[in-house]
């Protein structure tokens, strides 16, 4: 492996950051979920059961757009890492090198982006179908 590639790999895979990046998308899901739940629950508790749900729906909509936007951003940066290795031209990431570890974690993170966005869309659906706080 040439020095340049080794440096690039080291730069790209820097210790300690990868694990946090893996859970970024599910953390966005969790924050979105809590924002929606707390906003709607507090609103309905204070406004009464017959109140129009519109303010809560707007918050859920905005939170959903922000969350999906954030995940799209992460997805984009991960997409560049997954796939073929820069070191040995194959698609494996079961090897004992920092580069393959990095691509493996990026791959998992990428799939978690997909799962998290599906779960976010699920969570947003009740706001689409309901119209009062009852």
């Amino acid at each position, binding site marked *: 492996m040439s020095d340049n590639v080794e440096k690039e790999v080291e730069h790209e895979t820097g210790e300690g950051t990868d694990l946090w990046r893996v859970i970024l998308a599910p953390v966005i899901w969790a924050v979105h979920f809590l924002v929606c739940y707390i906003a709607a*629950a507090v609103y309905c508790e204070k406004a009464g059961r017959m109140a129009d749900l519109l303010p809560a729906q707007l918050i859920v909509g905005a939170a959903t757009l922000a969350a999906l936007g954030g995940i799209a951003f992460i997805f984009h940066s991960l997409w560049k890492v997954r796939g073929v290795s820069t070191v040995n031209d194959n698609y494996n*990431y079961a090897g004992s090198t920092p580069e393959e*570890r990095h691509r493996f974690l990026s791959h998992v993170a990428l799939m978690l982006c997909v799962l998290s966005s599906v779960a976010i869309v699920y969570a947003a659906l009740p706001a689409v179908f309901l119209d009062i706080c009852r």
Partner: protein
Amino acid sequence: MANTGTEQLSADQNDPKIRAAQEARLEKAWATPRGWRYWSAVNNTEIGFRYTMTAFGFMLFAGVLGLLIRTQLAVPENDFLSAELYNQVFTLHGTAMMFLFAVPIFEAVAILILPALLGTRDLPFPRLSAFGYWCFLIGGVFVCGSIFFNAAPSGGWFMYPPLTTEQGGLGADIWLLGLSFIEVASIAAAVELIVGVLKCRPPGMHINLTPLYGWYVLIVGGMILFAFPPLIAGDFLLELERAFDWPFFDPDRGGDPLLWQHLFWIFGHPEVYIIFLPSIALLAMIVPTFAGRPIAGYSWIVLSALGTGFISFGLWVHHMFATGLPSISIGFFSAASEAVAIPTGIQIFVFIATLMLGKVTRSVPMLFALGSLAIFVAGGLTGVMVAVAPFDFQAHDSYFIVAHLHYTLFGGMLFPLVAGIYYYYPLVTGYMLSRRLGVWAFWLMFAGFNICFLPMHLTGMLGMPRRVFTYSSDLGWNELNLISTVGAFIFAAGFLVFVFDGLRPKSHRDKAKRNPWNAGTSEWVLEIPPKPWGARSIPHIESRYPVWDSENFTKRYDEGRFYLPDAEEGRRETLITSVLDAKPVQCLRVGGPTWITLIAAAALAGVFIFATYHWWTATAVSGALALAAIIYWAWTGTAEHPEKDEKNIGMGLKAPLYVSGPRATGWWAMFITMTGDLTAFMGLVFGYFFFWTVHEQFPPPDIDGPGWVWPLIAGFLLCGAWTLTYGARIWNGRGDVILFRLALLGGVLLSVMGIGALAAGPWSFGMVPTEHSYPAIVWALVLWTGAHAAAGIVMQLYCLARSFAGKLTPKYDADIWNVTLYWHFMGFTAPVTALIMGGFPLVA
């Protein structure tokens, strides 16, 4: 490229005499104490084994309670058990199965086998595991023993107030304090296992090569940190109400019983996954072995375990669908409950795909594995049904739910666990379990289980509610109940066959040969029967299935050609590596046999047990003893100065013997513990804002206090203590010992004043905690933060004493690093408490 070390055969290892001498030294260092001293052993194999046996003991006890329930319900109008005893029996059945079996067996099995899977000699804190085990044993006996004095909890395993606040007797207190005590063991295990997976992987095992079981343990350890603390916070509040009449759950005085339901189920639902994931993790180890190929979709398993871990925290309200929450709240949780089926399903499909792509060998573990998949899929499908709120309104609190939860727990936890025990039995004991008896056990258990629980779906649909101690004969439930009872006894017979097989005398059994299942993962390189030292040499890993993939792996391992093949100084040593790439960073010397863990656990048990009976003096004495024992333990057993800076760890590498800060395992343990602690604090904060949500006006207009002045002062004082502690660490690092000691002393003074200022707020306004939930929650926050500041003072004084004793120096500074980390968390808790107490009433 990293050198695999294959060619670095040191001349020594070729000489059988030298190897024999190494083995003798290892044997001596890791020898298990004999006779009555056996109980002082702390090594993971002894603790894990004891832990497993104890958890199964409680399981059998709870199983007998289950049979009593089924006997009582076999026929209508039965008087086998009285209503009161029946309440105790079903409460204790659920409680013991959940808290004394399902969760602890995860910790037990993980402590037992994780070091083998990681090729390490022990987990980083063997004494902590031992301490956790003793807490579990004492607490479990205390909780279970209560039924023999007709004093067992009888309010259902989830202890809903107002029933449990109105009930007299000790039952609910035993539940609250006994289980809080056992949760200490769970958090201890979480610390041990998370650090184990992150820092004790063998060199070369980058995180993408971690055995799948390790991934699951890591994720479940993380989940424990966020799931158990809310229950600890809830226990704290409910016990404050029971013991001192602080009305957190009393609607007449501004409390709300739903707060308990939230805190309980924020714990309770993730807990279901906390017991499910580690069991399914055993399948992830078993299935590839019997399919004869690597798992199909390693990354999919990691994805789904992580996804399940997260989404399982968005499900708790689905236990509360019938409490009258707004539809939109129900909708969010219903959606998440459906979404969690996606990652859960992925795991099942990965197993099926692996089996279809491989060539399957028939075996008892596989039988249990396949049985578990069948049962779990059925339980999962009814789970999707009850996640649909309108259906749940109908099925809620009926036997349909009983059937559903037993299908998920048997399929997701018990059957995979039994599969795992058949699979790992030879590794742990050196003997095989009988195939013949195994097949018998499986079919009896599988048939018995379905005969017992399948009809319950119908019983529930026909309207039979949970927890009734009897029913009249004209409701149409008679035959179904009788069938269920017969099934329960068939299941019990199957389980007894399994227990008999596991416990019968060794002379009647087959000795296991090495790697009896021809598995590929690294734990199967271990000698059978097992050696006390665990790994002969800590292997260098280059693949997920090294026994299959790496050339001469077993031979090199046996000849000690990997890391740490010797114990030159007669010490118990293992390797600590970096989190992502498993580069060696330290040769860690772990603790050996000791009684102090038992003494500390017994003293701490005294605190919880005496408090149950309101014997406050005894409680205080016990608390002081526990504190003394823990300080003695830390003083004599941690952060010792090594005789040299680094040592040769084999394969041409050296590693330091002493590290501090983020490279040290102790720092990680503190970080993990405090993360859990912070979650409990957030549970209390949640309580405060929950009251604000449900009240028209909160704080109530007729109750004044605690003002903003005292909280502001308290916040500043405690932040000052934090800053000085942080400064102390910096000055110590620069070699300025005088300034270090002065800063610590200043920190102690500011902390003492900070505690005083915290209490002065509500005190000066004469806030009475029994009057209303508002002063109660304010005082609860003061108690919590004050107690944490007091613990911080003990730590500051400990560092001072260590410094004067010459044990904490600028070079050996692990203690102050860890204490500073504790204070970083205080630097969050203290100002948040002050802001909520003093600031929120101003804006509300």
